[in-house]
């Protein structure tokens, strides 16, 4: 532990911020303080009563019978202390469970409010870790360390106060040694804290390396090198033991310093009291009582020190959670949707007015250049439009705008003549069937994953879409067919199979608007051709936007738009879109005013955010 005071300050800050989020925190902190005071008072009572009993019995030969009230009082003091400990611990555990649960709820709701695009990429992975392991670690911080830290701040002061009142020479000795504690902590704590942290990280990295070797076992066996792996496991563990012990030698110094100070304190107080008793300048009662209290002065400090390391991860997690919660919904976040009027029926006019993006610009936070700029896109009812362009040209972002995952920072999105901002996003999305570039399966059966699109779909309907999308041969190889669990611990699907599931899901949705984002990136040409033929009928009556490298999957393409890629922008084209006439498919209407706006800025330094990667 680095300086206790500094830690307490930092801890205090976290507590206050937590208290602002979760009301139970404040009540808990007040209760912890109250319990600490009860325990402190009972320690003093024990010392006073024990000193009285022993000195009366020894020096004044008082009989046991006359000391019964004091002994009963002594027992009561212990009982009070026990009850305080019990109540404090129980309350700490209850509250920490309630607080962590409340924090998790806030964190998840806030993360979802920040939107799928914000969550994309590493955010989701890191946030999962914070929301699970981090919050559990917070349990340790909140339930164990925090009460100890509060006690460590209060109890020694209270006890020292009593000692000062009772016997000031002992007070001076104890005060001197308690004052040494922070100094010792600084001296040893600074030296060890950084090294210890590094070492614990290395220890966990050894775990990670061991894990790596086990993961690579199939490869090692395939090459007949299993013995080498074994040697590596042994050598790495042994090497780390040696360096770790070197670090522990220093890391344990702070505990040693605390123990040492406590031991010396008690010993010194005993010696001075003994000598003063010889001189008759202190009473036996005072000497015994002070002697009993002096180790208690150091005990809370030692306990807090012992809990400190265990709580470090929790503190880091708390910081992270608070920083997520403090994050406002950024530009490029989803439309608010909160004030949406439930009465609006966008579907009603969708048929006449279609979908339009007018002058759409999207800039992701932390990026100088917009990933989309001046996008004009019109999607008439029943029209099939291809959005083409290289990776990073903003195709997926355009789709995310239509899904309401991303709010353009300029321009507007009109659906059925209404601004998308004014429509309840849930109601709007019910009209959409989306095939993402990297479909994610949720924990559950294949059927569960398909029913995501239509919870009330019958088994027959599921079988039908499986047949339509070419999942049927795979299902025939599975004894549980649609009830086969997928995802973690279940069947591992290839990227192509996941894509088929996503397409099946979209078909099942039976929505008027279909958004396809690189729908066949993981399917080979034969499969794509087959799929294209079988989906023709389903797509026919619907409004379709397909974003892809090349026109894929959709048999009839009425129009194509090409988004300029990075090269185009760098090559210094005049900034207007490289617009393509509707060449593909049935050769639809000409582009007319549908050109994509300026490509300027698309290839700024650092490049546009690869939206393909962004929507992982």
């Amino acid at each position, binding site marked *: 532990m680095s300086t206790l005071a500094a830690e307490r300050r930092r801890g205090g800050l976290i507590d206050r911020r937590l208290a602002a989020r979760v009301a139970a925190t404040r009540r808990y902190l007040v209760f912890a303080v109250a319990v600490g005071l009860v325990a402190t008072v009972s320690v003093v009572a*024990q010392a006073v009563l024990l000193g009285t009993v022993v000195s009366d*019995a*020894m020096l004044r*030969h008082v009989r046991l019978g006359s000391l019964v009230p004091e*002994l009963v009082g*002594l027992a009561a*003091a*212990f009982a009070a202390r026990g*009850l305080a*400990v*019990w109540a404090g*611990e129980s309350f700490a555990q209850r509250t920490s*469970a309630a607080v962590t*649960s409340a924090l*998790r709820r806030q964190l*998840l709701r806030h993360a979802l409010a920040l*939107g*799928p*695009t914000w969550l994309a990429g590493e955010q989701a992975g890191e946030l999962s870790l914070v929301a*699970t*392991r981090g919050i559990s670690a917070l349990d340790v911080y909140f339930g164990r360390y925090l009460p100890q830290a509060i006690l460590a701040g209060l109890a020694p002061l209270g006890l020292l106060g009593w000692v000062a009142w009772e016997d000031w020479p002992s007070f001076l000795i104890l005060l001197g040694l308690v004052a040494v504690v922070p100094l010792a902590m600084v001296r040893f704590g600074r030296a060890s804290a950084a090294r210890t942290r590094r070492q614990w990280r290395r220890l966990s990295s050894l*775990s990670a390396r061991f*894990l790596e070797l*086990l993961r*690579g*076992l199939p490869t090692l*066996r*395939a*090459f*007949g090198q299993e013995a080498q792996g074994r040697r590596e496991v042994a050598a790495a563990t042994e090497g780390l033991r040696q360096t770790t*012990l070197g670090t522990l030698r220093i890391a344990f110094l702070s*505990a*040693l310093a605390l*123990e*040492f100070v406590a*031991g010396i304190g*008690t*010993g010194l*107080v*005993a010696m001075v*009291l*003994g000598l003063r008793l010889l001189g*008759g300048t202190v009473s*036996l009662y005072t*000497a*015994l009582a002070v002697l009993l209290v002096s180790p208690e002065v150091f005990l809370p400090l030692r306990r807090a020190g012992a809990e400190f390391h265990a709580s470090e991860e929790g503190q880091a997690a708390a910081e992270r959670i608070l920083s997520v919660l403090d994050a406002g919904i950024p530009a490029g976040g989803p439309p608010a949707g909160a004030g949406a009027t439930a009465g609006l029926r966008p579907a009603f006019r969708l048929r006449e007015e279609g979908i339009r993006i007018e002058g759409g610009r999207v800039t992701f936070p932390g990026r100088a250049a917009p990933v989309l700029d001046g996008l004009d896109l019109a999607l008439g009812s029943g029209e099939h439009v291809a959005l083409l362009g290289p990776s990073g040209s903003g195709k997926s972002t355009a789709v995310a705008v239509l899904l309401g995952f991303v709010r353009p920072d300029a321009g507007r999105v009109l659906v059925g003549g209404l601004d998308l901002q004014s429509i309840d996003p849930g109601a709007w999305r019910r009209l959409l069937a*989306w095939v993402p570039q990297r479909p994610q399966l*949720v*924990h559950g059966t294949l059927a569960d994953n398909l029913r995501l699109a239509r919870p009330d779909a019958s088994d027959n309907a599921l079988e039908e879409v499986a047949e339509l999308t070419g999942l049927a041969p*795979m299902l025939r*190889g599975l004894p549980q067919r649609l009830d086969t669990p997928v995802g973690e*611990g279940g069947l*591992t699907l290839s990227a*192509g*199979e996941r894509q088929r599931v996503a397409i099946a*899901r979209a078909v099942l949705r039976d929505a008027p608007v279909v958004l396809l984002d690189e729908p066949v*990136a*993981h399917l*080979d040409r*034969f499969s794509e051709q087959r799929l294209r033929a079988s989906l023709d009928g389903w797509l026919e009556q619907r409004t379709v936007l397909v974003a892809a490298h090349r026109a894929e999957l959709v048999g009839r393409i009425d129009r194509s738009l090409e988004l300029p890629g990075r090269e185009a922008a760098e090559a210094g084209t005049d900034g207007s879109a490289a617009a393509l006439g509707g060449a593909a498919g049935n050769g639809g209407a000409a582009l007319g005013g549908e050109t994509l706006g300026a490509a300027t800025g698309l290839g700024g330094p650092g490049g546009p955010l690869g939206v393909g990667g962004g929507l992982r």
Partner: protein
Amino acid sequence: MTDRPDHLATRVVVRRLVQVASPSWARLAGAVGLGVAGAMATVGILAGSGYVVDRAAFRPGLGAIAGLLAAVEVLAFLRGPLRYAERLVAHDAAFRSLAHWRVWLYDRLEPLAPAALRDWRSGDLLARVTGDVDTLQDLFLRCLLPVVVTAAASVLAVALSAALLPAAGAVLAVCLAVALVVAPALAVRGGAARGAEAALRGELSAEVVDLLRAAPDLVAYGGDARVLARVEALDQELTRLARRRSWSFGAAAAVVTACLGAAVVGTLAVGIPAAGHHQMGAVLLGVLPLAAVGAFETVPAVALAAVRASDVVAAGRRLLAIDAVPVPVTDPGRPEPLPGAPFDVEVADAHLRYGPGLPFALDGLSLRVPAAQQVAVIGSSGAGKSSLVHTLLRFWPLQAGSASLGGMDLSRLRQRDVRRAISLVDQDAHLFGGTMRANLTLGRPDASDAEIADALRRAQLDEWVATLPDGLGTPVGEGGLQVSGGQRRRIAIARALLAGGSVLVLDEPTAGLDASSGQRLVEEVSRSARGSGTGVLLVTHRESEAVGMDRVVELEGGRVVADGPAGAAPAATG
């Protein structure tokens, strides 16, 4: 594997864990000795200083207390260093045992990888197993050691009190015994509830990860509210469980305090009359309660040890369950030598399943691949492709039928020899932490630079490697150079080419690559293999990759359903 409930008794688990750990008993004894000495120093400081004060109250002169006073000061000085030494020695012993446990686990898992541990690729399983091993270090450090130290220190403290006054010794013994039995029992009740919570927490984690990872899909289809509701229901259940067990840990601590109170009051209650009747020097009266306070210092650690022990035993039980997984393939007693290359590979009427009652993954599969022929094996997930690879690499035995190499049945050959003849490019194309060279020469540690350069050229990696800062010495894998999916697979291919088997088995070599770069990779490997007359078995779910092969075989339901030349749609067989 680790989830199978296993009913090994705790005693058996602990004995087996200790056996595997083969701990350094000298070090553990040293740690116990230092621990007991530290605990006794606490008792000595308190009881000794109590005696000094009591004695001094009768004002006997400095000489009478000087010796004892010095002794107390020495103990006060020594206690910290004793505890410090104990912790270091105990950690040393624990780390040494950890090394044994790790190697043991490696040895157990090695013959099971990958086929016997289905879903090997799910990192979750392995992460749990390695996490369990890490938990084991607490067996000595936080379970056995505190218990043994506290037991020994308790006996000594009781003996000291009994020497002063037998009745006081008896009181202290009873109070310590009650605390040492009741407090851990209460704590363990909370610990057991924590076990139920741990399962729930695992479920909650899975849902949270799902919710965040699949958020786009869920939000788009309106499923986010449902999953969020599920997460919150789990969370509430977890909070309810936590509330229900919240009393137990506090109760354990309260019991320790209560027993200490009983010991203090009890020793005084027997000590005061004894001093009055001169059965004991009155001056010793203060020593008894202080000795009790000292004796109780390590007792709370025992309650924690009990909780920790239930975690350790649970982890140990899961690990020892690996013992129960039968080793699928063992070498024959008298192995035949490998026949001369090149080999025909033949599988005839193969039946394979991964356990009784499970469906046959290979269900009468027959396939003959003449030497140097290039064959693509296609089929969807569950068609039997991976099982065919497991058969050829001898990762899993056939239940019926045969598999042979150059006419020799695989079961009569040593596993190593089979794997020398058949080089595998596995699905994960695992790269180990270490240099590029170490990864490339995994199958041929003695490969010359010229051979490495040749393999790199054939896998079309030579130009890329030339641009690396340290060439072949560049570290890759975990913490090393970030290599793209395509490069990783090329490294795996170069590694397999360098190993020099006469049949190259590529198991989904392009998984995770987009279709066109996957196709390019396969074409290059095929061309390179033709140059050296190496046979190729390409296992893939992408039909278009089969184009450059001599032959395409389609599997479905564990048997061959179509077999024909590449290019055309594969012809159905009877």
